[in-house]
């Protein structure tokens, strides 16, 4: 970098700065090589070095960059400094999200190994091949049942808990699954759904209940298509209801207590208060939570891969995307599926941008 700067330039300092940058990159590079190629080192050592390298490296980069521009004239500092602050962040979101979006869209217009341009053929395949149609149907099931059950449970529990002295403990219990990974949740529920021969005693809770009531044990997540999808959806409802409940609960508490009280004095019953006062008052939160839950269920991957691997008619876009890329090696179709996920969230993106555009601060 050569800068024509009026005034005195301290050459020694410039050389030192360049050396500092070089040293920083050298340290980071050595750490990088060590972490990349250190197969035999004890894991605890790797983990410690990893933490130091990752956390310290970033701080070091900012420090050195700042130190570098400090000797420059004030005008140049004012111009360059914002880019030191926002530059790394913007570079990373650009490299990891913005540019790959364009690359994936581009790849979706080519055939399975990216050699021939096929136009929109991959998109036509997504909407015509039978396996893909099952996938799209399942995603619809996930959104319709997953999102609506989460919202309903979250709303009901938040309303009930608001009237109970046990509120804190109830909320902690319902919220707890939020801390669990979808893989662990998969194990928890696979165990609930476990099935054994009718002659043996059942070790899965659901089948034990069914047998105790005189029924036959069922393979809940394998048979009963397409309803086996519902047994997968229940897992995510179990997991996400806590999220919806916490946000609804906060919104309900912000309704001034006089309003529902006044309605009750006027003779409204609890059901009327709920539908005429609570729901309209928390509409904003209701929309925000619904969007978040819909986006989450739209991208669902872990649960399906862990529970069924997408077999028995349970594939969703995200698992199909994974299988197209890493099992069938069909890059064009895989990319098209990812683009469809993106298209599905574009309305939400536009809404967010509009809200942002209205902000005074900018």
């Amino acid at each position, binding site marked *: 970098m050569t800068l024509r700067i009026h005034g005195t330039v301290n050459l020694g300092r410039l050389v030192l700065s360049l050396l500092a940058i070089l040293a920083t990159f050298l340290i980071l590079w050595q750490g990088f090589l060590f972490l990349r190629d250190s197969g035999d080192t004890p894991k605890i050592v790797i983990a410690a070095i*990893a933490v130091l390298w990752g956390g310290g490296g970033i701080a070091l980069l900012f420090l050195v960059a700042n130190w570098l521009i400090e000797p420059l004239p004030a005008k140049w500092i004012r111009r360059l400094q914002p880019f030191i*602050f926002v530059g790394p*962040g913007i570079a*990373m979101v650009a490299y*990891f999200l913005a540019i790959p979006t364009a690359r994936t869209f581009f790849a979706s217009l080519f055939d399975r190994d990216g050699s021939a341009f096929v136009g929109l053929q991959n998109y036509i395949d997504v909407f015509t091949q039978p396996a893909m149609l099952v996938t799209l149907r399942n995603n619809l099931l996930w959104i319709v049942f997953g999102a609506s059950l989460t919202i309903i449970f979250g709303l009901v529990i938040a309303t009930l808990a608001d009237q109970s002295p046990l509120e804190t403990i109830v909320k902690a219990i319902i919220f707890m699954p939020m801390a669990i990974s979808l*893989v662990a949740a998969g194990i928890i529920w696979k165990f609930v759904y476990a099935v054994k021969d009718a002659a043996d005693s059942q070790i899965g809770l659901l089948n034990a209940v069914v047998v105790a009531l005189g029924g036959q044990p069922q393979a809940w997540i394998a048979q009963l298509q397409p309803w086996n999808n519902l047994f997968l959806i229940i897992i995510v409802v179990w997991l996400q209801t806590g999220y919806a409940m916490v946000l609804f609960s906060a919104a309900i508490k912000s309704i001034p207590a006089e309003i529902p009280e006044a309605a009750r004095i006027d003779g409204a019953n609890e059901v009327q208060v709920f539908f005429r006062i609570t729901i309209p008052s928390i509409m904003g939160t209701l929309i925000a939570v619904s969007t*978040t839950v819909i986006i989450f269920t739209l991208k669902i991957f872990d649960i399906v891969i862990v529970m069924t691997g997408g077999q028995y008619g349970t594939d969703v876009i995200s698992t199909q995307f994974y299988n197209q890329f890493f099992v069938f090696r069909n890059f064009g179709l*895989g990319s098209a599926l990812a683009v469809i996920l993106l298209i599905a969230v574009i309305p939400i993106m536009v809404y967010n941008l509009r809200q942002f555009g209205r902000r005074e601060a900018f």
Partner: protein
Amino acid sequence: MRTRKRSSALVNGSLLVICILWLIPTVGLLVSSFRTRDDVLSTGWWTILPHQEWSMVQQFAPPPSIDTTVNMQIAGASGTFDQFRSGVVIPDGKRVVWVGNRRAAVIQIQEQRWVTTIHLTLQNYQDVLTGKEYEVADANGNKHTEKGDDLSGAFLNTVAVTVPSVVIPVTIAAFAAYGFAWMRFPGRKQLFALVVALLVVPLQIALVPVLHDYVQLRLNGTFLAVWLAHAGFGLPLAIYLLYNYISSLPRDILESAFVDGASHFTIFVRLILPLSVPALASYAIFQFLWVWNDYLVALIFIGNQSGTQVLTMRLAEIIGSRGSDWHLLTAGAFISMLLPLLVFFALQRYFVRGLTAGSVKG
């Protein structure tokens, strides 16, 4: 604040039922993880509760002359061979059971007794944590060795993946948020709009192009690959949340610092970072839970590099290769839940605050 809770038996009763339903799957997992291998695989976990079961009172050899092809009379009970095989109940509530086949057998008199099957053990945890081989004996006493699942190694890997994956984006985002909030530079609004737009972009769309680059850089399977990916995917939310917080800090604090001649860098490190601890903490917890529980990103960027596999990947592999070893799966799942549950309950307040602020996330 509400002072009076309109609590009724109906409200508390329904909450109790909901809480029990929500807890039972996790309780079943926890209980099973401490039961012996044979118990887990043959009886339901709820049998540790007192329940009635047929237990032997008396046992004798069948009369040598008995003809098993016709109706038989044994110990006051009568029935066919098949009926005796499943047990014939005699008037005093006991039952007579033919144990064995037609030629070699014993007759048992059994009665209903209250029993509990509590044989608790830490063996499952030992077996699943170790990376070494261990010996198991099956029901017939035959011994064979099995390879441990090395979850202790995977636990360390998960720590090594998670900590820098939290520290890096928090650091970068704090700088960027400060830059957007308190500096004026060309393109500021457009760049922040980019961040807002990327909030909801599904990360599936970015995975394959990034993977492509990683392969070129020989980064695949390293911690670095996963840290950078998690940092990149987490940054839009981090910048957005921290911007909201930092831009709402009172302007006069900064102005008086500027008057005193402090630079942006000094103000950021000395003033803004300490003031932003609540926001930094809520994002850090959010990202911690997200990364710790992530499966997809690890699966793509770590792949089959067994040295760097994280807990969710190891668990998913065990489900795939020995999906009916419930004694190991339950212990493994609980190991993976331990740290996030601790963090979650210790810092729930910050986490909820982060959720409330970030309900637009994709």
